[in-house]
């Protein structure tokens, strides 16, 4: 406590626990696992009960939208992790560049999603629509889960954009720097989780036809 050895006065590591911060972020991610995991269980059960209807309904989805969004999200996962490498190396501008690219990919994902949903809506397939309600109960369930799960995932993407945008601001302001970048890492962890959820959503919804 009252150490007489000459430690630097303003030790930047004082009262700082990066590992604890990351662990806290992981704990939050576990709550996300419960949220989405529960939905995946619901999906699994209904797919089991309404096997044929789920496959018929999945044929309505355009797997090209899904595949393209998979590539977009995987690449954005790469760019956010590269932004962390850049900040570790002290390459501030490169880190900012990678963060902005990540945000662009995330927005690209949402634009893609917008076109996909618009196409569904124009075919009269949206929650509670007459076209949808005429279908079998299995297909209604499929599209219900489709809108809820990809919608909730989309909401996470939007939150990710805000989060990474804030990190970009902090990096510009040097609040995130080559010594102190745990916030950027936590934002990255969140972003990778969003990616992992999509890794499972994509084959389950788009590729079971």
């Amino acid at each position, binding site marked *: 406590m009252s150490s007489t050895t000459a430690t630097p006065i303003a030790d930047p*590591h004082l009262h*700082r*626990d*990066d*590992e604890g911060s*990351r*662990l806290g972020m*992981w*704990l939050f991610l*576990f709550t996300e*696992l419960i949220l989405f*995991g529960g939905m*995946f*269980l619901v999906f*699994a*059960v209904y797919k*089991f*009960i309404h096997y044929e209807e789920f496959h018929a309904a999945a044929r309505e989805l355009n*797997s090209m939208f899904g*595949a393209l969004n*998979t*590539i977009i999200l*995987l*690449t954005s*996962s*790469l760019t956010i*992790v*590269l932004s*962390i*490498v850049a900040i*570790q*190396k002290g390459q501030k501008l490169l880190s900012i560049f990678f963060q902005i690219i990540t945000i662009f990919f995330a927005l690209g994902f949402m634009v893609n999603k917008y076109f996909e949903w618009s196409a569904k809506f124009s075919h009269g397939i949206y929650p509670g629509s007459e076209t949808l309600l005429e279908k079998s109960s299995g297909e209604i369930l499929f599209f219900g889960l489709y809108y809820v799960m990809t919608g909730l995932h989309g909401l996470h993407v939007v939150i990710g954009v805000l989060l990474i945008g804030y990190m970009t601001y902090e990096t510009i302001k040097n609040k995130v720097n080559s010594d102190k970048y745990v916030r950027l*890492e936590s934002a*990255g*962890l969140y972003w*990778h989780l969003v*990616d*992992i959820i999509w*890794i*499972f959503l*994509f*084959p*389950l919804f788009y*590729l*079971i036809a």
Partner: protein
Amino acid sequence: MSSHDSHNENAHAHKPSYGIYILIWVALLILTGLTVAVAGINFGNLTVITALTVASVKSYLVLEYFMHLKHEKKMFWLFVYTSLFFLGVSLILLFADYTFLEGN
């Protein structure tokens, strides 16, 4: 995962480099292509199992490399895989239940 400098506050004491992440990204893209290609072939029930297996491999790569689990303390690893294990248990029990309830 074995050698870890527990004295270092920063888990990324290893030399940061871009290369490994680009390799992982290429692997992830190849696996995505594989899922799409396999989906075109009708394996019946195996199609879903194949898709889920590939998705699990992809998630493993993201967790270990992109999310740096490989360089975190063992404790992180234990936390993550314990939670995933129990999610897996719920899934297996649920399916065991529904398989035997079939026809009721």
